[in-house]
């Protein structure tokens, strides 16, 4: 596993990552409910470069959360292939991490202990372990809160702790499932900037699902727009702007308009014809 | 993944069988051990003998005598105790002054388990019916009072304000407002009171009585007639179970209008 890699600490310049390439080919997921077959994901193809930040947006029911769970291995029932650095993924593994929308810190452990959970099954000597934990707490700005319990933290802080835990074992790819969804608007903006900084320093490949188009554009190198029922990739938008991003950038606004147009477009039936809403003129 | 919830008759039978199996197993082991004679017949009585004793007691009226004595005490004590309990609980919840007056004493006395009062009550009432009825009354008083108090207190203030606004007189206020809102919780309290009352009664009868199921068991113990004791245990458990079950049914029936 990843036990002897040195931590890519707060480096001044982000070294280009060499591992963490994800390739998804022909991914489909179906299940039967009350006798009917439901397709959650239909023929997903996506290639993610090492160290890239990919945002995924889409309305409810487009299977984006399911996609993350499949990548991370919490769900193993699917057709198609998911490869990490050319190896097929099978079940969960320490090289793929996940941050949930509800932080899921263990309430009975301190923040530091929660972070240590990531190192549980890695053979690290004690002093090295403590150093790694301290470094990651510093990375997310929670150095002073190592001994606090989750119920004592605010939502934003708890989510940052969850991110620290997910990064501590230095996964090659980190999935984030609407990580900021439970936070209020002001905190969300702040933590977005934090997340960008953390990603820049750590250099891990990140795949983030979000409802918030602004967030997707602010953080992502690319934005994958999905359509629902069945879940498919509608289009992929390149965000060709340097990091750290400037929220006021006109390109971001233009891209946002494009994506929103895509998301609110009239649904097409499976055979490509426009589905007509009653009372609405065609065209 | 949604599970098929239709229970075919066969699957229900199997699950019932699985549940009964361990009990049947234990009874079987008992029977084998009893018949094997490892322990003297006095100590480990075979099931059929217990059954025979039970039938004998039933047929010659012994069982009926003891059972009716016990049930009479239970019924009287429970009625007295629960009525006073419900009234007290409601009064404490509705009137702040009554609450201040009674609640501290109520809480203090509640700390003492009811059976601890048995010796005291024997001194006051002697070993006749009265002290047992008082014990049952006490045992049913506290759970019903507490449940009623909590139930009435939990009625949203808004409901009571409406009643005050319309100047509802006391009787309709109690019947149309308080009663329906509190029935489920009060019934649960009554059920608990009934169970506790039954247990306290049997305990009291074991200690000091000249009739009743408890006394029947105690006599059996003193005469080393374990079959009588076990028959008594069986009937005690059965009565307790039936009482509890009936209350649950009543609760379910009366609480139908509730949405979860």
């Amino acid at each position: 596993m990843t036990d002897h890699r040195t931590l890519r600490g707060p480096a001044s310049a982000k070294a280009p990552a060499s591992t963490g390439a994800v390739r998804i080919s022909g991914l489909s997921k179906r299940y039967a409910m009350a006798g009917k077959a439901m397709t959650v994901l239909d023929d997903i193809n996506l290639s993610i470069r090492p160290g890239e930040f990919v945002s995924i947006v889409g309305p409810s029911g487009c299977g984006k959360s399911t996609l993350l769970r499949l990548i991370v291995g919490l769900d193993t029932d699917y057709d198609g292939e998911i490869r990490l650095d050319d190896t097929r993924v099978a079940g969960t593994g320490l090289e793929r991490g996940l941050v949930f929308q509800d932080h899921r810190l263990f309430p009975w452990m301190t923040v530091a202990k929660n972070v240590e959970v990531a190192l549980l099954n890695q053979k690290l000597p004690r002093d090295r372990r403590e150093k790694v934990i301290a470094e990651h707490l510093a990375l997310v700005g929670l150095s002073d809160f190592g001994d606090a319990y989750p119920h004592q933290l605010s939502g934003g802080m708890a989510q940052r702790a969850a991110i620290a835990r997910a990064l501590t074992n230095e996964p090659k790819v980190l999935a984030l499932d609407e990580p900021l969804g439970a936070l209020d608007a002001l905190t969300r903006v702040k933590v977005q900037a934090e997340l960008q900084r953390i990603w820049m320093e750590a250099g891990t490949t990140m795949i983030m699902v979000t409802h918030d188009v602004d967030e997707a554009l602010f953080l992502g190198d690319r934005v994958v727009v999905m359509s629902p029922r069945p879940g498919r990739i509608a289009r992929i938008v390149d965000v060709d702007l340097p990091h750290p991003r400037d929220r006021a950038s006109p390109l971001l606004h233009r891209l946002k308009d494009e994506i929103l147009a895509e998301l609110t477009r009239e649904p097409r039936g499976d055979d490509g014809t426009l589905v007509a809403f009653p009372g609405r003129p065609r065209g | 993944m949604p599970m098929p919830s239709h229970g075919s008759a066969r699957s229900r039978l199997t699950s019932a069988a699985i549940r009964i199996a361990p009990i049947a197993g234990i009874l079987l082991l008992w029977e084998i051990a009893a018949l094997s004679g490892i322990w003297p017949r006095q100590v480990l009585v075979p099931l059929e003998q217990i059954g025979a004793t039970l039938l004998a007691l039933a047929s010659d009226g012994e069982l009926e005598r003891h059972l009716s004595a016990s049930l009479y005490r239970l019924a009287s004590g429970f009625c007295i105790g629960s009525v006073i309990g419900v009234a007290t609980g409601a009064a404490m919840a509705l009137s702040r002054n009554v609450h201040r007056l009674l609640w501290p004493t109520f809480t203090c006395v509640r700390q003492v388990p009811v059976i601890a009062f048995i010796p005291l009550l024997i001194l006051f009432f002697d070993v006749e019916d009265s002290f047992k009825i008082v014990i049952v009354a006490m045992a049913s008083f506290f759970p019903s009072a507490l449940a009623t108090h909590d139930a009435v207190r939990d009625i949203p203030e808004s409901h009571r304000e409406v009643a005050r606004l319309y100047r509802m007189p006391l009787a309709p206020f109690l019947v149309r407002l308080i009663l329906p809102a509190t029935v489920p919780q009060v019934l649960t309290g009554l059920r608990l009171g009934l169970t506790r009352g039954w247990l306290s009664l049997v305990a009291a009868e074991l200690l000091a009585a000249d009739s009743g199921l408890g006394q029947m068991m105690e006599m059996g113990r003193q005469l080393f007639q374990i079959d009588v004791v076990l028959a008594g245990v069986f009937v005690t458990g059965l009565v307790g179970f039936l009482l509890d079950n009936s209350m649950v049914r009543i609760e379910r029936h009366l609480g139908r209008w509730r949405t979860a």
Partner: protein
Amino acid sequence: MNRRVASFALALAFPALVLGWWEWESRQGSGHAYAFAPLGQIARSFAEMIADGRLALHAGASLQRALTALLIGGSIGIVAGVATGLSRVLDRTASPLITTMRQVPILGWLPLVALWFGNGDGAKLLLVSLSAFYPTVLNTQKGMQAIEERYAEVGRLYGFTRLQSLRLIAWPSALPLIFTGVSQALAFAWIATIGVELLFSASAGLGTEMMAAQVAARTDVVLVCVACVGVMGFALNQLFALLRIRLLHWLPAAGK
């Protein structure tokens, strides 16, 4: 300020009334004096019992019995609860048995145990342990079964072994309910202790002393014992509540 004084006064009013009525009854002639021991006498008996160590002896014996039984019944209950909570096979076989046995009240076991094991301390301990066993096993089982899937998923992400999962997720997660079970067991054990002491008047104990006093028609002694039972029961529950706050300090204040 006046409100609080009024509340206090009212709270004392009721017991004061009762005490006054009691004292009046005790002066109503010899027949009544036997049941209604004068208040002065009750106070004197209390002082006596403390001075000659009787109160400490009996209270201590009861306490020891209850706590020992709690330890025995509680531990077995936790082990059984963990086992049935984790293994569905064990649950299916053992649970109906436990439920059936629970239908028979502890009282019901009493004549049985008395006949099989005699009147000694062992029999008493067995009965009280039994009363501590039920709430513990039921709540522990519920606790083990109520482990949230979302925490289990985190365990899967980090490759927890079954043992790690048990130690780090299942057990702490179940602890609040286990605590509930043990505190119920404590309350039951105290009641059962007094109960068996009343019924098997053998060695020392508050229940034993109460029965002896009743036979000797000493209402004053009985009352001192009753008060002692109540106070000790209350104190035990409070101590346990404090212990729970200390041990489960990671629970948010509003949580159970």
